């Protein structure tokens, strides 16, 4: 991308070319930071639901004045000769640009969906709500895609886009239990019917196990933020914190650390968090795997707002101890989440880790357990306690 950007800048300045980017990813802010870091100066559009249907990136198309594709994957070396300098109009005058577009009429889309009750109409409604509206209408988008899936449960476009909505809701203040797992499971279902869809595959791998990662995805973010600050600019704010899986380097095997770690509460003597001072939710990405394959567990911890709970950061940080059946492997049995410097805080904390299953497992559901230990306080001047929360996850082993 940066190579093409640099090469085309002069042609753009001369008015001979328009460069238009389409970001095929979930989060606009990350793409915006990337563009800021790389100093991209062309319009970049956001396509979180893969409206275009692109299956791989980068994918470049040279499009002439009338909207006809003249090259797919053009080569930089001969781009000027084979595209810029070519006359595709055959003497006719260049067509006029269309008027600047507006956002779709959601009321009209709703009416069409209810009247026709077709998959396409419900999907269009979902697309309109997802692309053009914020969290306030996310539930309506979820409902629209769900409608199209009621008509055809195998519609993989609706599956993928519904997954995008669930992840968006998970990352918002309106999150509901199970949103992240639903997102991952829907993407998995969509990919099963179109395994060559690499945009969808990457969406899962972004949160998936390190053993199955093609590359680290977002390990560039810290460097980008540093270099943008050094230039005297404020880096684009990343709205939702990245999980470890999104910046972790791929690995080919886990290094065993069971010799070094020991269970902090082997006999289960610590008091349990029975009142839910910390709301805990676990998701497994992907949740259905073959024997011998890996997956990644994501656990979110959020102090309860209704109980006015908050983290006590003067003590040890949040820890998770992973309990695995014989023969299963993980990167580290004892994990910690970083904590801020302030004495108290209420942010969501996240821990994720990979699991490798052994060969030869029978198909079926397997339960994996872990437990978390944390210091949490209740109320403004309330009691602070060191508590344990037992966590259960399920992985489905398939043929």
């Amino acid at each position, binding site marked *: 991308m940066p190579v093409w950007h640099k090469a085309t800048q002069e042609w753009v300045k001369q008015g001979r*070319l328009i460069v238009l980017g389409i970001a095929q990813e979930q989060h606009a802010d990350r793409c915006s930071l990337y563009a800021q870091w790389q100093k991209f100066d062309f319009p970049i559009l956001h396509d979180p639901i893969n409206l275009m*249907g692109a299956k791989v990136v980068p994918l470049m198309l040279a499009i002439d004045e009338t*909207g006809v594709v003249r090259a797919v994957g053009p080569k930089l070396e001969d781009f000027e000769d084979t595209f810029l300098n070519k006359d595709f109009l055959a003497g006719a005058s260049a067509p006029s640009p269309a008027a600047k577009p507006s956002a*779709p009429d959601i009321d009209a889309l709703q009416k069409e969906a209810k009247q026709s009750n077709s998959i396409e109409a419900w999907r269009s409604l979902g697309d309109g709500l997802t692309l053009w509206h914020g969290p306030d209408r996310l539930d309506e988008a979820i409902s629209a895609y769900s409608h199209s899936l009621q008509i055809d449960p195998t519609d993989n476009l609706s599956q993928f886009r519904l997954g995008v909505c669930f992840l968006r809701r998970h990352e918002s203040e309106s999150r509901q239990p199970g949103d992240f797992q639903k997102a991952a499971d829907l993407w998995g279902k969509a990919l099963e019917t179109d395994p060559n869809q690499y945009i969808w595959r990457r969406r899962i791998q972004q949160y998936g196990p390190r053993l199955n990662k093609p590359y680290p995805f977002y390990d560039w973010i810290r460097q980008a933020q540093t270099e943008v600050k050094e230039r005297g600019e404020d880096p684009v704010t990343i709205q939702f914190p990245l999980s470890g899986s999104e910046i972790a380097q791929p690995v080919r095997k886990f290094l065993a650390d069971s010799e070094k770690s020991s269970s902090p509460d082997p006999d289960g003597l610590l008091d349990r968090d029975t009142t839910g001072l910390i709301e805990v939710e676990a998701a497994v990405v992907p949740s259905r795997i073959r024997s011998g394959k890996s997956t990644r567990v994501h656990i979110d911890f959020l102090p309860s707002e209704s109980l006015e709970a908050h983290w006590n950061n003067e003590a040890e940080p949040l820890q998770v101890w992973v309990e695995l059946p014989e023969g299963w492997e993980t990167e580290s049995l004892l994990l910690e989440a970083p904590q801020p410097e302030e004495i108290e805080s209420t942010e969501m904390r996240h821990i994720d880790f990979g699991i490798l299953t052994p060969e030869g497992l029978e198909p079926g559901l397997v339960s994996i357990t872990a437990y978390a230990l944390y210091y949490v306080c209740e109320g403004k001047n309330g009691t602070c306690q060191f508590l344990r929360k037992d966590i259960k996850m399920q992985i489905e082993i398939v043929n």
Partner: protein
Amino acid sequence: MISWVLLLIFGLFFSETALTAAPSYPPQVGEAHPDFVLTEIDSRQPVSLSQFRGKKVLLINFASW
């Protein structure tokens, strides 16, 4: 080729309707690229391909990862 022209005309007449899916993407050389409307990442303003008609366009589908 004909299917892509029809799709483009459909998009122009029903410009308020979000395009739900390209039947197969990318289009082949010689075929019209379907029009689309998406938001610009910073301004959140709608941008379409057809608003650049009359100019040569390099369209880049990419990701920051």
